[in-house]
């Protein structure tokens, strides 16, 4: 279960992790600047297991894998949005940050709600509001990569 941080549409990778911090790729250092340009308090407030819920096209912009890495390293357990920008979508699975596409959840969940996510079924439970939402399950191919433990292991097995 995690507490929700809520953001609007088109959250881009420049606000998730501003380029001025890209002279490093150290996850903990990236995490300390996570969401800095959209929510200066995020890094100090976020706790292990918390969840980000946002509007459509989350993660648009640059291909920096530093964005999902920063979010994951900050302790966030899942990002929920109606749609994700495609490079961010790939990067999230490849680096092991779970993301779910669910329009209803993105609309109804509010900041501060307590939410539980079941990745097997794609069911998102809003404990605060006593509601459940059904997210798109992962495509088979993605499940294969996740089951290998990310793309690194998948490649290891297929080299």
């Amino acid at each position, binding site marked *: 279960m995690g507490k929700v941080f809520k953001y609007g549409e088109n959250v881009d990778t420049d606000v998730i992790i501003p*380029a001025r911090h890209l*002279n*490093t*790729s150290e996850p903990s250092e990236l995490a300390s600047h996570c969401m800095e340009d*959209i929510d200066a308090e995020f890094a100090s407030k976020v706790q292990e297991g918390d969840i980000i819920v946002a509007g459509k096209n989350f993660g648009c912009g640059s291909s*920096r894998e530093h964005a999902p890495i920063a979010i994951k390293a900050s302790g966030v357990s899942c990002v929920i949005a109606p749609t994700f920008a495609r490079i961010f979508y790939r*990067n999230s699975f490849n680096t092991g940050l779970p993301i779910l596409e669910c329009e209803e959840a993105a609309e109804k969940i509010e900041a501060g709600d307590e939410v539980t996510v079941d990745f097997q079924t794609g069911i998102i439970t809003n404990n605060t509001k006593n509601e459940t939402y059904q997210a798109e399950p992962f495509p088979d191919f993605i499940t294969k990569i996740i089951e290998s433990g990310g*793309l*690194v292991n998948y*490649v290891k097995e297929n080299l």
Partner: protein
Amino acid sequence: MAMTMTQKILAAHAGLKEVKPGQFIEANLDIVLANDITGPVAIKEFNKMGAKGVFDINKVVLVPDHFTPNKDIKAAEQCKMLREFAGKQDIENYFEVGEMGIEHALLPEKGLVVAGDVVIGADSHTCTYGALGAFSTGIGSTDMAAGMARGKAWFKVPSAIKFELVGKPSKWVSGKDVILHIIGMIGVDGALYKSMEFMGSGLKNLSMDDRLAMANMAIEAGAKNGIFMVDEKTKEYMKQHRNKNKAFKKSMKVYKPDKNAVYDETYVIDLAAIRPTVAFPHLPENTKKIDEVGNVKIDQVVIGSCTNGRMEDMKVTAKILKGKKVAKNVRCIIFPGTQQIYLDCIKAGYAEIFVKAGAVFSTPTCGPCLGGHMGILAAGERAVATTNRNFVGRMGHVDSEVYLASPAVAAASAVKGCIANPEEF
């Protein structure tokens, strides 16, 4: 099944007769690219994968362009990692400071990408090479690592939107205005997960530099790739920009969409009707025609980047700045895409025009485009830039603003001190 250009290229590289939208495939890669930001992460992942060597020393391209010449110690360490990896792996196409350029200006210039290629790059603007009739898309560092190791990547076959271009753009309208106009029309997620395929009788009125600028910004509409139909201009460009390395030899392959290929949508774009266009903060879709801009005072002008740092961009900038002065209290920074373009600017006398006008003329770097170095904005400052993104904080302080425009609009604005219409020059 009838296929689009993108689908045909992907099918050929996956060894399949046909592919359908939504299908997952594994395709062979012709070029795998990374820079000094994404490369070091990719190298770490590459090592974790237990890979010994890259799949092909000619097909991996590494370009330190973002924080170079090294802006600080951390950036220097990242570049060092890239350089050492390139050395150890015998990477043929590693471009050191002094011979480098902004990656997406450099690769076409060096003839490293040809029509029909499949290219992945750990940089979102890798979609630029679609201008040459290649399938080319941005990916992250882990995909890059896997690509370097195996020479393959997984893709979900995209559906597509067709842009049928007709007519001829007016004098001060460039590819940048066309793509800003399109993004304004369909939005920053208007082509999400899809291909943008450009064709039509108006294509012949767009130069290669126009097309490269347009394909470059396909990602700003959320697209997986942007791709142009190959015509005589494309072939001529590729002839002029052949790669000199014998080991690299490759020939282009032209893929045309099937007659009855299915497109999710078709837009007819009349190039003659497009006005110089400006994208207001903080999204590329917030576009206005130059006639509706009003009085926007500016502090900085940035001309260059992988979108508009090519020779035609320099030429139009020089045309407007010739014999004029950059407005008082405005900083004008011009950075060409590659060392070759830099040299050509000197030969053509543009460098002198720029400096005499009171502009800064820099060697190639991504620099200010991503708020890295060489022109960061303070709180409350506004810039007109020929770059591709105007997100919050993109060029510096979170309270600064970036207005995206063509080189003609940017140069006119530098002289006037506010966003200006090049038609007045």
